[in-house]
């Protein structure tokens, strides 16, 4: 048993922490919040140069071939911002989906450009019914002679306004899992991506209006799309959880510092039991998310059955980030809701990720199924 990071993980953490402090301090993160696209070209180039965009990809596809646990160290640091940008959408979920679904030729065509940052992927799964299982996919392409025509809408697609390539899950049969994945050019005629307004962080509507998709756009085999996506999700979700853990950690540190420095009634407010209790609640959620996430990563990296652990980690992490932000708002009162202070960026992200890729109730039920109760 060893619950410490390895030496190389510690080094990666130091690099990433320093990157975040210099390139993405709170004013940068706050400044990006209202942008239509989450991608800041300068940050994106630098991240690509550090090899972060291909961190989960094997070397043969231009990646660094790191373990998921290694990548989690990076995503914890990115989550501290919370740094916007399609890091996860493209570099993790997009990359792993292509890796799971595509033919080797397709992989070689797509993935190196993902690792280098030239291509930006996002995976379009859910629709207005907002279900994250295969049953929620109803968008069915027309046309048969090899090519496809798409008409319809995908919703809550992360970072679609900065994507160059969309991986679209479509229904191609009547069986529950008869889903195929199409690789669609985000600039193709008839494709429109729009950031949804409100208390959401770069979740987009993508609409397809008579979009012509060539036969070669089918990733791998038809009807095998859900199996591939499920495999990619199982490995991607714990990295989203790591991003959340990093967010929780940053909010925790902000809150502790505030209780130590904010003076009311002549003493730092951390002396008041009620304020302490908000912090206690916060750290309990943080640690729950952290250890559930890391155990799931360990199971995946060591080839153990991990499905139940992954669902549990997402359920815990989703709830944790929401509750951590709530507790932080109680600690900070007025200061916490000032946009420029930076806490609202976490709060909005916590709401966004609460449901993204499945909310706690959905994951708890999948967990129970996986445990075969």
């Amino acid at each position, binding site marked *: 048993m060893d619950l410490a990071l390895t030496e190389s993980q510690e080094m990666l953490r130091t690099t990433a922490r320093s990157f975040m402090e210099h390139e993405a301090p709170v004013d940068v993160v706050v400044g990006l919040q209202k942008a239509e696209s989450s991608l800041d070209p300068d940050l994106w180039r630098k991240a690509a140069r550090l090899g972060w965009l291909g961190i989960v990809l094997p070397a043969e596809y231009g990646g660094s071939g790191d373990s998921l646990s290694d990548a989690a160290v990076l995503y914890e640091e990115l989550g501290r911002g919370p740094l916007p940008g399609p890091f996860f959408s493209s570099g993790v979920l997009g990359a792993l989906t292509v890796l799971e679904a595509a033919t080797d030729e397709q992989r070689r065509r797509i993935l190196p450009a993902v690792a280098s940052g030239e291509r930006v992927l996002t995976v379009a799964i859910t629709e*207005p*019914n*907002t*279900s994250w299982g295969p049953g929620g996919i109803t968008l069915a392409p027309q046309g048969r002679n090899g090519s496809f025509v798409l008409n319809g809408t995908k*919703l*809550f697609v992360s970072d679609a306004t900065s994507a160059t390539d969309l991986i679209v899950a479509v229904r191609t049969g009547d069986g529950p899992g008869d889903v195929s994945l199409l690789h669609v050019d985000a600039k193709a005629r008839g494709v429109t991506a729009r950031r*949804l*307004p*409100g*208390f*959401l962080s770069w*979740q987009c*509507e993508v609409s397809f209006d008579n979009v012509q998709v060539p036969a070669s756009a089918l990733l791998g085999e038809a009807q095998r799309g859900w199996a591939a996506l499920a495999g990619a999700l199982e490995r991607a979700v714990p990295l989203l959880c790591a991003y959340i853990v990093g967010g929780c950690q940053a909010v925790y540190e902000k809150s502790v510092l505030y209780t130590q420095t904010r*003076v*009311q*009634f*002549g003493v730092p*407010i951390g002396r*008041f039991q*009620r*304020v302490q209790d908000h912090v206690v609640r916060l750290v309990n959620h943080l640690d729950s998310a952290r250890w559930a996430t890391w155990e799931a990563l360990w199971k995946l990296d060591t080839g153990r059955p991990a499905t139940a652990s992954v669902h549990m980690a997402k359920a815990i992490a989703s709830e944790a980030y*929401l*509750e951590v932000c*709530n507790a932080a*708002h*109680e600690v900070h*009162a*007025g200061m*916490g*809701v*000032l*946009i*420029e202070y930076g806490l*609202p960026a976490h*709060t*909005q992200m916590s*709401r*966004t990720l*609460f*449901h*993204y890729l499945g*909310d*706690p*109730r959905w994951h708890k039920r999948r967990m129970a199924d996986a445990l075969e109760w």
Partner: protein
Amino acid sequence: MDFEVTYTEEQQRFRREVRGWLETNVPASVSRTPTSPEDNYRRYLELRDLGRKLGAKGWLYPTAPAKYGGGGLDVDHAIILEEEVDRFDLSLPPYYDSGGRLGSASILVWGTEEQRQAFLPAIYRGEVRTWQLLTEPGAGSDLAGVRMTTAVRDGDEYVIKGQKIFVGSDNGTDRIWMIVCTDPNGKRHENLSWFMIDANLPGISMQPMELMGTGGEGGTDSGIKQTVFFDDVRVPAFALVGGENKGWTVATTHLELEHGGGGRIGRNRVWDRLLRYCQETKRDGVPLSQQQDVRDSLADIYIKTEVQRLFGLRNFYLTYARKPKSYEGPQLSYYRKTTGLWMTGAILEAVGPAALTTDPTWGSSSGFLETQQRNGIVSVHPGGTTDIQRVQMARRIGIGRSTREKAGTVHGAE
């Protein structure tokens, strides 16, 4: 017991009169969700105009004494008025005027006859709106710790310097009232004074603060509060209410009201709209309200709004029947705030991400769900954090201190 106000025939006639008047005078356009800052301001002016019309009839502050320009009506008539404006999703006053509502209560209790005559009619008639200035960078929960904003007597005037934060809303104000430090070396609670002043005096300037909540006066933009700077602002000594260094005592009146002591009747707007949304929105062909998960969440949410209504009703009764109160004011406030915050999560779980967007297609009508998601958080701190409200409750229950604390007085000479 009787949980309902019973109406006489005269009162029922009054209700018909009010309803008819409102249907004629409330512009249909005020129900819109503003789409831009300019639109927000236009809507604000429409509401101010409505306020002046209500004020002219004595319906803006219906129970306020008639001799100062209020309605001089009894509680039953006030309830009718509130219920009727509530049908238009409005309150009395129909715009952000908590400074007027709370400030006028303090003046009525603590002002001299001259001050009442000078300050109250413009408020009650809707001619002015008023913001309250309490919080300072170093004095939030610890409101009695106000030190940064000071007033020094100079002949017939006071000179005010300093800074207040988290003030008001958008679109400016006519009047402000504030607590300032008039004895920097004085004892806690005996060193503050309460002033009612003109918002346009030389030396007063404002700078907006962008908040996570939605617009203070409607709209789905970020909420705006102000930082207000005082640079040697000269005010007449007549602006001092309740006497020098008596400001804390004066403030307890409005704090009791702000902490829920006054109680509330009326329906819960979030609930009504949430239920309607869940009945009208289908997922996979079935209305949300018919799905067992959502139904269970709705039951939990409904019960909390009902308890809040019952606490509000009780406080309303205690206030107007002049029964003794103890912890009930801060209890209502605490319950309302913690329920609002809890509800953000409950609604998010029940409705899903549609609760997070103002998108006309994929969100809820007028973005009211998204507004609740933000404001359920932002509403937790103004008027005292939930921590402070529990401090109040404990003191009044008689366990926080060696002597039990009494509720502030909210009745004045009438």
